[in-house]
């Protein structure tokens, strides 16, 4: 739980204003640990602040917590195939939210199925990326955010 800071010195909320205005905050969602580490590394190479979530529910909980503090991420990057709520369902939830809908969402998948790609783009995904991610994909991601 995150408290919005009043006078308590025990619990400090980390406001983005304290950091460089250049630092972008990305939420990366993937149920695979190795893939989470990989996307985290790529984002850190491009000087992003990274938060990872292992499933869509945790991702939404985190986004809600940020929302309660008037905070947002600059980008959500999510795997398509996840148990429980899929990345596609997460995309739709984000786009349905009046507060979150302008946050760009990128979908990653190991399978480059045209119907899948089109479905995601049609539902508002900024981009569809093929796994495994490579160093050259970093540039594409930064272009999405900027």
């Amino acid at each position, binding site marked *: 739980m995150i408290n919005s800071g009043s006078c308590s010195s025990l619990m400090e909320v980390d406001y983005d204003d304290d950091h460089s205005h250049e630092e972008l905050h990305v939420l990366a969602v993937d*149920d*695979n*640990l*190795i*893939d989470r*580490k*990989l996307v985290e*590394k*790529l984002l850190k*190479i491009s000087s992003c602040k990274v938060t990872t979530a292992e499933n869509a529910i945790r991702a939404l909980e985190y986004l809600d917590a940020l929302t309660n503090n008037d905070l947002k991420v600059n980008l959500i990057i999510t795997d398509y*195939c996840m*148990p429980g709520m899929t990345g596609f369902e997460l995309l739709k939830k984000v786009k349905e939210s009046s507060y979150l809908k302008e946050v760009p969402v990128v979908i990653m998948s*190991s399978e480059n199925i045209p119907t899948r790609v089109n479905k995601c783009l049609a539902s508002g995904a900024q981009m569809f990326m093929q*796994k*495994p*991610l*490579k*160093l050259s994909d970093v540039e594409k991601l930064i272009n999405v955010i900027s």
Partner: protein
Amino acid sequence: MDTLIAQLQKQFRDYTISLYHQGFLDDQFTELKKMQDEFSPDFVAELVTLFFEDCEKLISNMARALDQTGNVDFKLVGSSVHQLKGSSSSVGAKRVKGLCVVFKECCDSQNYEGCVRCLQQVDVEYKSLKAKLQDLFNLEQQIVQAGGRIPQVDI
């Protein structure tokens, strides 16, 4: 006369090339190396360590599922194979990934003998790769300890 460093570097180069040529690694492993720098010199080693731990866990899950004679949950096995296929692809473990493709087909067609065979092969293959990468990392360490630089190998 070749110095110790030069000899070690040559060994490293040759060994690396052989791992690619024999199909143990593919260019995703090269990509991982590109992401490594002086601030994260152990990135590749750490990631592959996680990968091998993941292999062990998933293989154990699959073995357990396949052990339920007469009541095998092929969907469960299939989802573990899917995970393994993803991780192996992300680290460049080419042979493991290739086996996962076949393994997935066996799961989808509920081919019990095929699954058992694939499981055995995957187990052998990941352990083999683990040993080879350990040798590779040992060579790197020897080079560094001898005061040399780890050469960049162009495949």
